[in-house]
């Protein structure tokens, strides 16, 4: 491609978004056309954006340009597609394109047709804003795009705004995002005033501020981006907002919007403030481990399929942070060549999580659409009714459980390697954190497998538990193709780790303070760590071994049996009749872990037996269990109460008397004069 074409790709994508929005508004009366136009427009724009990003990654040269010039104020908003930006743009494209295609079919049923245009506009605005967040090169442009991204997401979350909980989720999201944005504004403007520039290359050189102020800025950035990334304890909005949105929007939120926060953590926390302090890295490792383990533990207890996936997003954000934190610690202790491994693991997981979580959320969307409920206890037996959706969901469930040869395995493998390298080579007691984090990561990954056996098994297997589940119908092809697409992406990312790391090599090489390392990749199929044979993995070989074993199993069955008649018989009902009521339920499936981790969950259980004749012969037993929302109850409730109490006190100031207000103005003027006059 000629350079001219390449440099036009990104503006062209934004223009297509703008034209699509115009077209959406024009066709808003005809929902069918509006839907096709708005989502295919978005998909085309995402293709162009992905093309631009691929060019940057292939060539290694950043792509620069200007988005917007305001002559009167001299404001120039420019963009720079660095390899890091390009990687996140590709993540956006890998999910954004399937999600847009899926939405064409899905939105026809999921939302009222009168809202199609509004959702379409918000969708296009959102994708455009996320793209700009990833590439913009200037504080004003970044904050502007960041804010539009937040507002568009809130609008999409509130699509079903008649439901009270949905509206509440949207508000919670807005409030938390805005507190986070407040922290970002403070941090950015401190950097800007210290360096006298609004341009990222100038303010992110790493030597703009030093000393305690640098730690404060780290804290502000961490808070601001951490809210978006959904890490514990800043996560409380996530399990409310993600399930409330239409499912394709949930997929986008979990797979990509979380990554906007992660992008911020990479760009500003880890690589924007100079060489990180050891404490920063360990903070990331600690928060990451906590998010991973608590995220999966909470996910295990959910029986709402979308809430389960939302909590699992917190878990994966934790794994991403864990890798990043390990990398920062290594960089802080002067081992940049090891940091490369950890950073690559983290970036790899960013992509992998986007692929499988997008797949799972879209699959959940199809299921919810077919059954009309989000409760897995009301599903069951869907694999027979929805074979393709079920198979794709199974691929996603296996991928997120970290089993080879799918993609969850490869990035977790690399994260483990990074932690082991950290233990081996980082001096001092700091290194004890690494095997501890490794053990907890192993627990997380195994618990994720439990969680997704439950999610898949209770939803798709055995007998339908309700009539609605028994009459579920497979989704149309427009909704299946994106699922299959994402399933193939999951498999490809798992089978070709070498190729992925080749691409990631150019990303890590572009980050400041990392020693370029080219030996992570050994051809397309193999990835390895370090110069020596510390370890390497070839998932394709594992896949062949598994296929070989599978063939052997089939062969054994065929060879040994002369006549192979398969008899179908009813499942043994322990003397009674089996039905949907006797099936193992989701709550029962995770009950052992509820008991094992009761110190974490602090469950309140309620068993109620209803009897007609004698209490010894109950006709109905009701069981209710609730886990304590620890962070909401012990962190956010007191905080909210404090804010409200403060506001009550401040009401005194707002007396409604004009004289008092004039007095405040006078007082303010006097104070300002004294303060400024003194300088």
């Amino acid at each position, binding site marked *: 491609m000629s350079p001219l074409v390449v440099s036009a790709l990104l503006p062209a994508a934004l223009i297509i978004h703008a034209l699509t929005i115009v077209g959406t508004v024009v066709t808003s009366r005809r929902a069918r056309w509006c839907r096709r136009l708005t989502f295919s427009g978005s998909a085309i724009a995402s293709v162009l954006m992905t093309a631009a990003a691929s060019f940057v990654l292939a060539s290694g040269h950043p792509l620069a340009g200007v988005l917007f010039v305001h002559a009167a104020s001299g404001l120039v908003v420019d963009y720079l597609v660095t390899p890091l930006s390009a990687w996140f743009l590709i993540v956006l494209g890998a999910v954004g394109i399937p999600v847009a295609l899926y939405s064409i079919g899905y939105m026809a049923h999921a939302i009222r047709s009168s809202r199609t245009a509004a959702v379409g506009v918000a969708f296009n605005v959102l994708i455009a804003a996320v793209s700009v967040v990833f590439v913009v090169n200037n504080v004003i442009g970044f904050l502007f795009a960041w804010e539009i991204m937040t507002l568009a997401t809130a609008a999409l979350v509130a699509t079903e705004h008649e439901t009270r909980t949905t509206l509440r989720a949207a508000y919670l999201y807005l409030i938390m995002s805005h507190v986070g944005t407040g922290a970002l504004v403070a941090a950015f403007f401190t950097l800007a005033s210290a360096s006298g520039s609004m341009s990222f290359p100038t303010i992110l050189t790493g030597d703009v501020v030093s000393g305690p102020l640098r730690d404060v800025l780290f804290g502000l950035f961490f808070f601001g981006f951490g809210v978006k990334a959904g890490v514990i304890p800043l996560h409380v909005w996530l399990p409310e907002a993600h399930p409330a949105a239409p499912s394709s929007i949930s997929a986008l939120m979990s797979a990509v919007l979380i990554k906007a926060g992660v992008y911020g953590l990479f760009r500003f926390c880890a690589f924007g403030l100079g060489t990180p302090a050891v404490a920063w890295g360990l903070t990331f490792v600690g928060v990451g481990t906590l998010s991973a383990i608590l995220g999966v533990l909470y996910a295990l207890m959910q029986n709402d399929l979308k809430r389960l996936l939302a909590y699992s997003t917190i878990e994966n954000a934790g794994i991403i942070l864990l890798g990043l934190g390990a990398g920062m610690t290594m960089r802080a202790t002067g081992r940049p060549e090891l940091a490369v491994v950890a950073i690559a693991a983290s970036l790899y997981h960013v992509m992998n999580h986007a692929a499988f979580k997008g797949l799972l959320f879209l699959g959940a969307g199809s299921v919810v659409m077919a059954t009309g409920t989000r409760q897995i206890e009301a599903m069951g037996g869907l694999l027979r009714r929805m074979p393709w959706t079920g198979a794709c969901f199974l691929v996603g469930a296996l991928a997120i459980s970290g089993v080879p040869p799918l993609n969850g395995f490869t990035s977790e*493998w690399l994260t483990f390697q990074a932690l082991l390298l950290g233990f081996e080579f980082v001096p001092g007691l700091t290194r004890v954190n690494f095997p501890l984090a490794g*053990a907890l990561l192993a627990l997380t990954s195994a618990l994720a497998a439990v969680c997704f056996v439950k999610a898949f098994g209770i939803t798709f297997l055995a007998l339908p538990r309700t009539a609605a589940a028994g009459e579920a119908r497979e989704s149309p092809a427009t909704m299946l193709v994106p699922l299959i697409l994402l399933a193939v992406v999951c498999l490809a990312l798992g089978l070709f780790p070498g190729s992925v790391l080749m691409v990631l090599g150019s990303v890590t090489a572009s980050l400041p303070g990392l020693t370029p390392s080219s030996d992570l990749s050994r051809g397309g199929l193999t990835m390895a760590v370090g110069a020596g044979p510390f370890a390497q993995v070839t998932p394709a*070989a594992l896949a062949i071994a*598994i296929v070989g*074993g599978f063939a052997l199993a089939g062969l054994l069955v065929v060879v040994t049996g002369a006549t192979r008649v398969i008899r*179908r018989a009813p499942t043994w009902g322990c003397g009674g009749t089996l039905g949907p009521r*006797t099936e193992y339920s989701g709550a*029962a499936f995770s009950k052992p872990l509820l008991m094992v981790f009761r110190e974490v969950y602090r469950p309140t259980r309620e068993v109620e037996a209803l009897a007609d004749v004698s209490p010894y012969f109950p006709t109905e037993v009701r069981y209710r269990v609730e886990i304590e929302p620890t962070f909401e109850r012990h962190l956010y409730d007191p905080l909210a109460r404090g804010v409200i109490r403060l506001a009550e006190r401040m009401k005194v100031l707002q007396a409604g008397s004009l004289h008092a207000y004039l007095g405040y103005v006078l007082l303010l003027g006097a104070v300002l004069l004294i303060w400024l006059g003194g300088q």
Partner: protein
Amino acid sequence: MNDILGALVGAVFQVAGLLAVAPLLRGGIKKMKATMQMRKGPPLLQGYYDLAKLFRKETVRSETASWVYVLGPRLYFAAAVAATMLVPVLVAASPLDGAGGILGLVGILALGRFALAAAALDTGSPFGGMGSSREMTIAALAEPALMLGLFTSALAAGSLDLGAVVRGALAPGALFRPSDILALSGLFVVLIAETGRIPVDNPATHLELTMIHEAMVLEYAGPDLALVEWASALKELLYITLLIDLFIPFGIATTLAPGPVAIAAVAWVAKVFVFGVVITLVETTNAKLRLFRVPELVAVSLGLGFIALAIRFL
């Protein structure tokens, strides 16, 4: 090309050999247990008879089950077979050296477990769900202890590749360290938990409330059940071989010459026998734990692993 051919031949021999021996281990443990309990017990070769019988029987499957139910045992078997190729048995290198090492092994076994646990939910029987839930819970709790134990050995050898770990343990100067006793005890608990032995699970029980693994595969019959049984036996042998590799690899061949390989075979059989005796003793002298006491046992194992790591490297 020669490498690939060599790996293939090695893999075929190793898989065939271990598959052939695996039922004998289970039979041997059963026999020893019976002898200790002053019973006669089933014949030593009963495992083979059972497999032969099961493979010839007709396949009965639940009416409610889908293809996941059919896939489960096969994938479980496939995972055990694939895992076999990753573990050095007689020679200090696994046939698939460099394909995935320790983490690949753990991942593949997790795949098999996932497949079987999902399949168990497919019949709609509460037993399947119960077994599936319990098996996954115990495996999840054992996972960190397993990883930590494996990491200790891997860090000592500077590699996650099992072949390299064994060669590292064989290197002159490498002694049996005190920390190894702790790590070995920790991993032995994991072995008990993962292979469904007393005190975690009872392989001989079909009592409703105490079953774990058996509940999970209760609905299977005929060749499906044969695959599950065989794979479980293989997995058990595999875990024992893994512990041998990590802690007492002495005698293992470093070349493919017939002499050392023969010695290695004898040494391996002797070591597996010792493990069998220990497992028998543990099974005979302990009662099965309540399900909710198992986490405490596994926590002890995790603690041992961590102390071993700390002693070894700090």
